């Protein structure tokens, strides 16, 4: 069950073009499973920025001198994320979490491939650890537009069988996109499950490749959301249900992890005509 807690910032450090915040968040790390996210209030009680910002949980420590702590990776995109990047040790933050449905892990030790776009790699670290504990082979592909927008290359090496880097400008690893190298990796390792987190376009392409190789895919989507707890209905996307019916589902509570083959990627930003409750077709 999600909690609302007052966290204390323990540390803010730069990592490439990102900031990693370590925060105390009593009760949240204890419930954490890879794929969960938190929302953070911006600017304090009088803030004019009223919407919480959502972040995938990157790392947790359930014990230690500070009790439970968690790390999030922040990319500065606007006023809210800039404010967060300017927090300092001992500042307090309003944290809600853990939120969302986590990644589903295979029961057996099957080969897996983890794909992260930009700081979309953040939730994959502890996922990789847990997959390794289950005896899974873990291949990792990290991609970004340029080297400084990659996150955690060195750290994730420790928990992966093999790591492949792509950058669109060729500043690190293979020049190109994650989807340029993914088919080879899947072919070579007979990957059974693909886990992905990153921009929608990347997720759509990764889900397509996974389907081609008849692999199960788990994609963590990033839809803009106002509340993160399921009450505002802003973060919806078209997803096919068990009954074959497409619904506009909330990515905060029914996601953010979805099976790649059930998301209607090309129709995100639209209401598919056959979605439940779609406007009647204009026959005139």
């Amino acid at each position, binding site marked *: 069950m999600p909690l*609302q807690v*007052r966290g204390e910032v323990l540390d803010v450090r730069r990592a490439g073009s990102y900031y990693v915040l370590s925060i105390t968040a009593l009760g949240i790390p204890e419930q954490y499973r890879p794929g969960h996210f938190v929302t953070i209030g911006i600017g304090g*009680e009088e803030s004019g920025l009223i919407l919480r910002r959502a972040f995938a949980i990157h790392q947790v420590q359930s014990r230690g001198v500070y009790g439970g702590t968690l790390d999030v990776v922040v990319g500065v995109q606007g006023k809210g994320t800039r404010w967060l990047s300017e927090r300092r040790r001992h500042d307090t933050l309003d944290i809600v979490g853990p939120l969302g449905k986590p990644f589903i892990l295979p029961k057996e030790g099957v080969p897996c491939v983890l794909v992260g776009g930009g700081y979309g790699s953040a939730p994959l670290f502890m996922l990789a650890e847990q997959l390794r504990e289950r005896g899974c082979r873990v291949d990792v592909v990290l991609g970004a537009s340029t080297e400084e927008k990659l996150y955690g290359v060195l750290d994730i090496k420790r928990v992966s069988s093999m790591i492949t880097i792509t950058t669109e400008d060729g500043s690190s690893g293979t020049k190109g996109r994650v989807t340029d190298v993914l088919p080879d990796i899947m072919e070579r390792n007979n990957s059974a499950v693909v886990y992905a987190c990153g921009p929608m376009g990347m997720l759509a392409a990764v889900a397509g490749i996974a389907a081609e190789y008849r692999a199960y895919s788990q994609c963590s989507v990033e839809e803009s959301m106002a509340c993160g707890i399921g009450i505002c209905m*802003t973060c919806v996307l078209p997803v096919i249900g068990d009954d074959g019916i497409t619904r506009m589902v909330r990515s905060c509570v029914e996601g953010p992890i979805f099976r790649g083959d059930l998301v209607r990627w090309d129709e995100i930003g639209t209401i598919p005509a056959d979605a439940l*409750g779609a406007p009647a077709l204009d026959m005139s």
Partner: protein
Amino acid sequence: MFGRGIGSAAAPIPNIDMTAALASLAMPSPVLTASGCAASGRELDQFFDITKIGAIVTKSVMLRPRSGRPTPRMCETPSGMLNSIGLQGPGIEDFIEVDLAWLEARGARTVVSIAGESVDEYGKLAQKLRTAGGVDAIEVNISCPNVSDRNQVFACDPEMAANVIQTVRRQSDSQTPIFAKLSPDVTDIAAIARSVVRAGVDGLTVINTALGMVIDVETMRPALAGVTGGLSGPAIRPIALRCVWQIRQALPDIPILGVGGIRTGLDALQFILAGANAVSVGTMTFNDPSAPMRVHNELALALQERGFGSVSEAISYGHRGADIFEVVGEGEIEPE
């Protein structure tokens, strides 16, 4: 210091009579949720005990399941947000079976918000609710800006608004109080208020969102897929407060549920002083999921600090000294 969540629970609870009433709906607190900002209460029940606040006002439900509008549906604005959800929901039958049943079992008071595309649809919705359990009041959303034809917002036309209310009144259990939710996007909100009161409404919810717009300067297109959307949050609080004040001046006895950008107990107090009998915490619940409970606690403290023994003593206290019956004009309103 964050006065929210865990913090607020620890504060001493002042000895203030916090009971409130909206027509025949009696509540242990004057703080409710707002339609569209609390779903059907289940999610918020994880953060505070929803039976402790006044009532859950559920998201406006329509006759049939509805997918709403495409994304992006939301855009942050200074001290507020713009939304064009487009009334996404499960439809009345599923709502009664799942959401309303859950709320009743949970023991929460429930104000069911309904929205129709025609007068006839509002009537059918009221009919369905007549036989359903757990309906403590009906809020008639005649003011949603996110309908297909924005020129057809019922709350912008006194006659159309009255038609809807008459129909809902006829189709509803006579014991169930009916509130009309009004739009601020009118020239004379008191005139609309008078019209729906004449049509038989038991109370007024004041206000819905104000229609607004943002253009994304990167794409150089409207930020919302729906082009325009409803503005909510603290940005509209002074407008909402003005509407409550004006309606209270025009109609001294009609129960008013004040809504619009309430974030703290002091904000809630402003609405009560302006004439609201109870208040809804809406958009700020997105900011702080404990907000309705926190506002209740902060309001109790604010009342105590000002020497009030109860919420009811503070209602319309901001009007003292003025003869509020004088402003009615033309003598056409008979106080209830």
